[in-house]
């Protein structure tokens, strides 16, 4: 039996038909052994990719294709990357995008397909001007209804300057060592460049300000 319900497949097929503009190749890094969530992630993405001609799924093995993994800065699996014209959009999902995070994935696919998102022009200029590396980690659990808001903000910011910015969703229960390292006891929690962090969901503008603060405090 499939993981996606028939009614959801029908709804998503219509959404993709109506809203997808350009193709979105999905790149999944996975492995066969010692990865509890890799196989289910492969399955859900396979089912998803079947719903539109504009979606393709390319599954690579973290160990065997380690050069690719290095190129995309992938050090843990499952890891999902969305591409546009073969170009990295700065968007990462580490861990299975289940529960509410599935909606984050769907939204990111539609944004990448459209090649834009709803961040207002004044913020776009600030994001585009960033010329140093920015790494935005957003820790989530799949049962957290507030988390997709924080993940969306990170992904939207990253895709406007993918040469410098990474927006990562991290499914906390799958990576307990990271939960420990970053002292995550509540979600969503956002950590920017290891030096700025905040809890909860904030408007896009406030997240951009935190990104700029992370850059200036490092100088």
């Amino acid at each position, binding site marked *: 039996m499939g993981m996606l319900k028939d009614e959801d497949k029908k709804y998503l097929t219509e959404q993709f038909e109506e809203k997808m503009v350009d193709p979105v190749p999905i790149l999944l890094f996975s492995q066969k052994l010692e990865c509890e969530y890799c196989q289910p992630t492969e399955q859900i993405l396979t089912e998803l990719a079947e719903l539109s001609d504009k979606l393709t799924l390319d599954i690579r093995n973290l160990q065997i294709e380690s050069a690719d993994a290095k190129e995309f800065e992938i050090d843990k699996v499952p890891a999902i990357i969305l591409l546009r014209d073969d170009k990295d959009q700065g968007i990462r999902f580490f861990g*299975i995008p289940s529960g509410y995070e599935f909606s984050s994935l769907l939204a990111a696919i539609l944004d990448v397909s459209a090649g834009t998102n709803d961040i207002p022009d004044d913020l776009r200029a600030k994001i585009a001007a960033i010329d140093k590396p920015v790494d935005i980690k957003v820790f989530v659990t799949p049962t957290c*209804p507030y988390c997709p808001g924080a993940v969306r903000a990170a992904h939207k910011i990253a895709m406007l300057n993918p040469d410098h910015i990474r927006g990562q969703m991290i499914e906390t229960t799958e990576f307990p060592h990271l939960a420990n390292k970053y002292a995550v006891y509540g979600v969503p929690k956002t950590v920017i460049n290891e030096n700025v962090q905040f809890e909860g969901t904030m408007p896009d503008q406030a997240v951009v300000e935190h990104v700029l603060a992370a850059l200036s405090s490092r100088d």
Partner: protein
Amino acid sequence: MDFSFSVSGTPEVDLKDSYDVVIIGAGPAGLTAAIYASRAQLSTLVVNKGVAGGLAASTEWIENYPGFPEGVSGAELGRAMQAQAQRFGAEIFNGEPETLDIASHPKRIKLSGKDITTRAVIIATGTTPKKLNVPGEAELTGRGVSYCATCDGPFFKDKQIVVVGAGSSGVQESIFLAKFAAKITIVEFLPTIQAEKILVERFEKTGKGAFILNHELLGIEGADKVAGVRIRERSSGSERLLSCDGVFLYVGLAPQTAPFADAVGLDKWGYIEVDSSQRTSIEGVWAAGDVTAGATRQIAAAVGAGATAAIEAEHYLSSKS
């Protein structure tokens, strides 16, 4: 392993310059209003922060909403209500109003940098969990203090949890937390348990629960994460420290009226006052659901109020055109 996949993410909408009705909030009241308004062929925009379903969406399982004999997950119910509203053409905008003038005619709202106008507004912003403002609470939020069991429960596997508040929310969420935690102690200010009996029985059946009644929470202790709570027995005044790894607070709800507080009439607790037609003190503005005074905070009631608000708004608009 059992996975679910929520498809309720709201795709970006191309905002029009004007709408017949703008509904603020996409919980059960707001989405029901959207179903009625859009089905009445009014151009309808729902402005929502977060996920469809509102507070109901963070309830794991809902058993008292009619039509679901086995119960329904809050997330699924929210998704279904949103899909129903979208089917009739309601647009859903994900975000918050940047500015809002609901007293003017037409009413003006700024969303994502764009100014739009609307002839009617329905406020359905609901409530947010109340804070107790005891020492340690703000400092340790996200470090063991939480207001959302479904969000943060997984971090407390085999740990000791204190839940503050023995109302239905506190006990219901404790049943969910029992999936993860080793032990859950519910601390209640009053000498009695306020929760529905069916929930108390289910909580006791988990074999992981205990109640401490008639105790006041004085503070939450811990250096960089929660280590325990200090509580006081209210009749004897004796204090003690209860060690724990997590504290979940279910001590009531506060209305989310910040953007409207200066404009519409509120009761002394800050809820929006409405008449039997869900009308507020401002012409062309209705309110529905948990944000209104006297709400029973039930999904079934919010749905009814949302329907009334939309029907009344439709009558108002047709009388004006």
